[in-house]
């Protein structure tokens, strides 16, 4: 009995101390106004100290990617803190390698602003905007993938590169969550954004998006992403998607043919069965206008009774291996599950592509 009382007393003391510290930090510690310099003084934000860097940037309309809403569990919100960030926290170390740590990379959601700071972020991120949008179209592509289109209301237009993504804000049980979705509409369609969203059982954002109907308001930020289409018209483009990794490919293909109608481009798409095939007919029509556009769909499951299929079978990396001859100047874009991406990268390297020529998005 005496042990139980001792544990309760000591435990109670610790809890009281922790509460006291939190209250003291909340109400007594005032860091006052602080300056956050961005990219060597290209802009300086005046913010109230005490909050996180991610929140301060967000309030000042600098939208750093973050999928977890600042909980330190996604590792997306990396920024380089040149001065004033304090020591790296244990919550950050799993997301940073040693080179990143040495260079001052931090997770913006974990860094508290307690003094003036200097940070560096990619210039692209300074162009990211938050959009008020409205659902204009919802179309079922497969049993679990929907095409959803948003009209942009404020601002009314988006600048994006093929292969970039937006973050959709979805209501979660503990506040809003943000999830990244690649833009499937081409870059020249600036007034709306189209996505392909697969319903993930229990997924907060995909369930929310699948429940949307025309006219519903949505908040999104973008465009984010490192994909960069080669400007060399003689360079062949290889797009490889798997599962629901079609969206960036669609954007790349349409944007590409608007600018270079004769450019050589392969689209490889892997899915399990004929029930998962989408956009094939649309691409066949496009290929009639652009003879250098080659389409390869592959099914990985055996055909069911009564099913017919005249395309490839097996996993998509096998089709890539079969169709591409080595030694051609190419750039590749991949989107799909990690095992697929790694298998395709191995194949592409065997065909002579270097790391710098391969962009990928593992989801």
């Amino acid at each position, binding site marked *: 009995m005496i042990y139980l009382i001792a544990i309760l007393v000591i435990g109670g003391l610790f809890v009281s101390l922790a509460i006291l510290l939190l209250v003291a930090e909340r109400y007594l510690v005032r860091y006052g106004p602080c300056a956050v310099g961005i990219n060597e003084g290209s802009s300086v934000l005046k913010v109230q100290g005490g909050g996180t860097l991610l929140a301060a940037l967000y309030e000042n309309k600098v939208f750093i990617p973050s999928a977890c809403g600042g909980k330190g569990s996604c590792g997306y919100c990396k920024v380089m803190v040149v001065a004033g960030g304090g020591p790296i926290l244990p919550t950050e170390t799993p997301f940073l390698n040693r080179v990143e740590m040495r260079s001052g990379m931090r997770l913006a959601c974990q860094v508290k602003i307690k003094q003036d700071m200097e940070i560096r972020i990619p210039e692209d991120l300074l162009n990211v905007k938050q959009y008020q949008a409205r659902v204009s179209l919802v179309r079922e592509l497969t049993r679990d993938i929907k095409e959803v289109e948003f009209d942009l209301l404020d601002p009314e237009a988006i600048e994006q590169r093929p292969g970039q993504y937006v973050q959709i804000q979805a209501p979660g049980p503990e506040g809003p969550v943000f999830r990244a979705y690649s833009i499937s509409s081409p870059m020249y369609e600036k007034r709306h954004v189209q996505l392909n969203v697969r319903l993930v059982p*229990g997924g907060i954002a995909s369930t929310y998006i699948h429940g949307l109907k025309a006219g519903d308001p949505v908040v999104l930020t973008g465009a984010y992403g490192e994909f960069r289409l080669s400007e060399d018209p003689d360079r062949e483009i290889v797009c490889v998607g798997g599962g629901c990794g079609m969206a960036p490919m669609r954007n790349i293909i349409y944007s590409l043919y608007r600018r270079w109608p004769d450019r050589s481009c392969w689209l490889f798409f892997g899915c*399990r069965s004929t029930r998962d095939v989408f956009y094939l007919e649309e691409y066949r029509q496009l290929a009639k206008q652009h003879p250098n556009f080659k389409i390869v769909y592959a099914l*990985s499951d055996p055909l069911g009774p009564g099913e017919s299929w005249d395309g490839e079978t097996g996993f998509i990396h096998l089709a890539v291996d079969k169709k591409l001859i080595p030694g051609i100047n190419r750039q590749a874009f991949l989107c799909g599950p990690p095992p697929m991406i*790694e*298998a395709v990268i191995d194949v592409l390297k065997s065909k002579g592509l270097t790391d710098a020529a391969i962009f990928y998005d593992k989801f």
Partner: protein
Amino acid sequence: MAIVTVGELMDRARDFELRLEVYYAEIRDRSKDNGVRLLTYYLARHRRHQEQALAGLDPDRVGHVRMVELKFDAPFDLDAGRQMPYAPPETIQGDELIEMAVGHDRELVSLYRSVLVQPVGDDARTVLEALIRVEERDMVMLKKMQAMHYF
């Protein structure tokens, strides 16, 4: 009772990871299912989570943490993951494999947590939390793959 250090437990976990590499490679070689082969090819290449977690930490600090003595040994069966009631390598399905891999991650998380409840000091906590986070990230990724029904 022999004194156990954090380093010894980390070595057990590393041995477990290395055994899993071999185990997945064995399934890859014996399965006739292309999806399972693709998945195990990936899994066999990505089991060295400890190496990944420690790569971001100062080696001197890790070395110091390895010497920390524990008050209690943490029970951990190296074969625990492999003795799960799953189908034999020739007939195992992608879903089962992912479940198995999640189970392995969970085993390691539970090992690290059993050390965390002991008075090991701040540096050791940092290292163990980093190890736990890598396992948890892998679990999230595996569950996402499972939900996508690609394999």
